[in-house]
């Protein structure tokens, strides 16, 4: 077990809570039962800070910071539910929907989707931006799983879980900006991957219908990101090491 970290005072939307030095603003909020919406963050994986859904205002100067990648400090005044932050979160979601081809009605994850749920949470009833309608091919070459880049939001949970928990590192992101895309095995079809162990952790953590089991029909795909938290917690605690110290 880790030593207990020194406690400091922080406030969320004007209410005081106990923060622990070394933890992130997001961890601190969740430990105290304060809700901060997030998408790319997944407990048990390294912090990515890419989706910007969890941005908060830190009082001095009202700078926006991702709660997942900002450490708690003494007397930090954190704002979560301000009109500006609500507007930014909604804009981020609209940009995510405009960037890919997200068609909820025909998606395997319809009704079980973190992106769809977040759109409801943030009050997105339409998308103001122009849809980019990119042409992207589905990779159904793997015997067990399907990768549909049309539904990918580049949260990199699959990249991280494959590298950090499974240790296989099948997934990567290539190119930048609007061209950025997920690839498997140095851009070979997933089904030809020699490093993929078929473990399915990438599928378990995907927040949308981008990674799914072969043969899933509309609304049938349910992900299981909590399993990864269990693995990470057990590993950090050394639960599966020989108690006598002989590995």
């Amino acid at each position, binding site marked *: 077990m880790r030593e207990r970290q020194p406690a400091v005072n922080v406030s969320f939307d004007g209410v005081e809570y106990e923060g622990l030095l070394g933890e992130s603003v997001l961890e601190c909020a969740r430990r105290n039962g304060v809700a901060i919406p997030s998408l790319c963050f997944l407990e048990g994986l390294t912090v990515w800070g890419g989706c910007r859904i969890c941005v908060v205002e830190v009082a001095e100067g009202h700078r926006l910071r991702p709660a997942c990648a900002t450490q708690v400090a003494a007397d930090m005044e954190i704002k979560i539910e301000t009109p500006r932050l609500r507007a930014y979160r909604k804009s981020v979601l609209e940009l995510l929907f405009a960037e890919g081809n997200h*068609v909820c009605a025909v998606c395997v994850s319809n009704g079980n989707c973190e992106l769809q749920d977040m759109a409801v949470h943030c009050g997105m009833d339409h*998308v103001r931006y122009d*849809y980019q309608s990119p042409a992207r091919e589905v990779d159904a070459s793997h015997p067990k799983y399907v990768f549909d880049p049309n539904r990918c939001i580049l949260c990199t949970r699959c990249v991280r879980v494959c590298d950090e928990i499974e240790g296989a590192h099948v997934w990567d992101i290539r190119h930048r900006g609007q061209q950025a895309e997920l690839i498997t095995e140095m851009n070979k079809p997933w089904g030809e991957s020699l490093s993929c162990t078929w473990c399915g952790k990438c599928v378990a953590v995907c927040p949308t219908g981008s990674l799914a089991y072969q043969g899933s029909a509309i609304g049938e795909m349910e992900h299981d990101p909590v399993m990864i938290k269990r693995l990470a917690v057990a590993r950090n605690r050394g639960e599966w090491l020989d108690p006598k110290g002989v590995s």
Partner: protein
Amino acid sequence: MKQARIATAWLGGCSGCHMSFLDMDEWLFELADVADIVYSPIADIKEFPSDVDATLVEGAVANEDNLELARDIRAKSRLVLSFGDCAVSGNVTAMRNPLGDPLQILEAVYVDAPDRDGLIPNAAGIVPPLLPKVLPLHKIIRVDAFIPGCPPPADRIQAALEALLEGVLPPNRGEAIRWG
């Protein structure tokens, strides 16, 4: 009391939203007590009338007929509502957009497909030309409120109509705005 003048219209969609509208069942009788349905694909009315209080528009804007009707609706309705995911986002109707030029898509369907006679349907004044891109309704005309869903469940449509009849916009928070 003066009857509210409500219209519904059908652009590039599958009519599933209108099926869901009919799924309001006996509440339709209550609606008929307080509102006149002055234009709808389920009523035999040829011209979109003037002086409409609110129009629910199903479907995306996919062809020139859709474009013309959408503009006519806006000019003659006090409130326009995007009714269902196709009107809201393009949805399934807009799935042709990543494939590019509509002419190439028509060729793939009508010319290259083996069980067809090799001709793209082309009857002037009857088959409307496709627009280069399918667009959500709010990209063509101003839209006052959105009723997402594929289709929107009947109780969601009812809640929207009840709000309109009370003179307010439909709920735009929580499950009322869930897509899919």
